[in-house]
């Protein structure tokens, strides 16, 4: 079960690219695992290493020594498009990322992130531009993301509110997940099913006519 998460304070890694897809976040060849081990190393792998496996020089984003231990990413528009692989948020969390700032997140990625207590924080294009300027001017400033207060506090003390799905927020603050909640509603599901017979039975059967 996940740990409760309320707030965190950290420096920020800026990756000022738009449309960062889940193949960049976690390349497909790392999806052959059957557990969640080792995914921190897979994060942004092909940005960090040349095709022959050499670490790029200068190092890419998260490999820059001063970015070690940072828990927040500031990225361009539309983060997490593409594949539904939950390995993407797993890899981000395994590396230590807790919050990502963008103007938008792909739907499936956003859902996957929230289920892993990784906060997708949506800001306006104007806010994103001002945050980019802030990081450029003060790259080592510490930001606080407070999920309970739904508030981000910047190094100068300025703060702004953010929206987040209220149900996901409750789950993350309490450190619970959704399966327990849905199982608690099982009587309602059974009642619904009683009035809605299954539309298909996948159990093997012979072909009636050749399709």
């Amino acid at each position, binding site marked *: 079960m996940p740990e409760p998460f309320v707030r965190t304070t950290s420096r920020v890694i800026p990756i000022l690219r738009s449309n960062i897809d889940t193949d960049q976040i976690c390349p*497909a060849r790392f999806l052959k695992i059957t557990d*969640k081990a080792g995914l921190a190393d897979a994060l942004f792998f092909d940005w960090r290493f040349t095709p022959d496996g050499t670490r790029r020089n200068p190092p890419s984003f998260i490999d820059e020594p001063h970015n070690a231990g940072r828990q927040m990413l500031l990225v361009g528009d539309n983060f997490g498009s593409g594949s539904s692989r939950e390995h993407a948020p797993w890899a981000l969390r395994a590396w230590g990322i807790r919050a990502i700032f963008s103007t938008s997140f792909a739907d499936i990625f956003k859902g996957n992130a929230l289920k892993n207590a990784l906060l997708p924080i949506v800001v306006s294009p104007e806010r994103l531009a001002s945050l980019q300027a802030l990081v450029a001017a003060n790259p080592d400033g510490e930001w606080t993301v407070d999920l309970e207060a739904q508030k981000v506090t910047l190094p100068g003390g300025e703060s702004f509110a953010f929206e987040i799905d209220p149900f996901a927020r409750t789950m993350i603050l309490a450190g619970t997940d959704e399966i327990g909640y849905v199982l608690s509603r099982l009587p309602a599901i059974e009642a619904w099913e009683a009035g809605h017979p299954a539309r298909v039975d996948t159990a093997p059967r012979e072909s009636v006519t050749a399709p």
Partner: protein
Amino acid sequence: MAERPRTILEKIWDDHVVTSDPGAPAILAIDLHLVHEVTSPQAFTGLRERGLKVRKPGQTVATADHSIPTLDPSLPITDELARKQLAQIEENCREFGIPFHGKGSPTRGIVHVIGPELGLTQPGMTIVCGDSHTATHGAFGALAFGIGTSEIEMVLATQTLLQRKPRNFKVEVTGRLQPGVGAKDVILALIARIGVGGGTGHVFEYTGAAIRALSMEARMTLCNMSIEGGARAGLVAPDETAFAYLKGRRFAPQGAAWDAAVAGWRKLPSDEGATYDRTIVIDGDALEPMVTYGTNPGMGIPISGRIPSPGDVEPAAREDLDRALAYMGLQAGQPIAGQKLDVVFIGSCTNGRIEDMRSAASVLRGRHVADGLRVLVVPGSQQVKAQAESEGLDEVFRSAGAEWRESGCSMCIAMNGDQLEPGEYGISTSNRNFQGRQGKGGRSFLASPLTAAASAVTGVVTDPRTLQPTATSSGAAAQAAPQPAAQPTAVEAH
């Protein structure tokens, strides 16, 4: 009192909401859960840790497609991780009682190809799978979308999902597609218009004369790539074309149940006066074959066009364009046609069905692939493979110098050893041209089967309408006329 007019999305949604607690997402009942080897193992582990069973194994079905080799199936799997993953899905299905179409089964294949061909995919259903191309099944008028592994575990455990209702986005394609233009070109043109995040938060509903005229397999191609436009799902209202495709398939309703099902399905299309959050109209008559030049599926242009220059795009997109062209090794302003290729890949859940095979074969029949070019033709399922072989298409491909493979995702996701080498250029009928998607350092152009096959002949990106006829082929364009809706098994291009 008359009911409020509803879209097909709203009807399916209303039909599946189990309950909706204040402040919480709706609990949505799931009719069909498709499972494959790559995104499911951790979900089964979660079930074991909680001591839960699969609640509805009879509404769940599994296959092996992503990491499975497309070589001779009697050969051992040399990739140890892939071998373990494939053994794991088999074991998980056995333990939890899930029907499994695995290695050696004549019904194995890409999950989004076998669902429809087995008749499991039906109008009005909610269908999920741990794969973003689940949108494919929307071709039947189902609400079908990709989910993550936590959600897979949720569906295995409860046969429901917690969901917020998506918004309606109407995509109307008017007119009639020209010869040589098909569903792949329509979807690439849409994504080029709205961008890869354009449909976020929405479900596409494809309408209009050009959509109605598409075969079921063409509709699957179209819906498949909805996710590349940011929409988690895309759908086409079911009609006679859909019913004719489904009738008699293995898991489709039979007899009186069939008639009752069709009567229900006829009520699904959006009501007159239903409202949409967004609408876009595309002139189907004006579409050309499309091809991508960049590193996301929104970077597409008509095949007769030139790669954009920084001045052609919004200031905010210039850096993206520069980075994409640097990765691709292409010049702004250069024509895309004529670009040299190393590899051609024909297959995937986007374009790996029998009509796609026929379309590619219509070009390659009596021709040979260009010198030095590697051409892989990978059927989407073992049933597609068998059908193609019964029509002699495998011989067409082999005689032309192409490789004819076992079914699977293959070079679309490059997990099974089929991949581009660093720096290689490939034209591909698949769905993603992201950096490294088809092999690290590989460079992808997305296009239709017709365009890919025409390019296989010349070794460069080629407009299929420009290929000269041969003695045994009347030319791609002549083969490429849109098929009437009344012929759901229509052959050749789409």
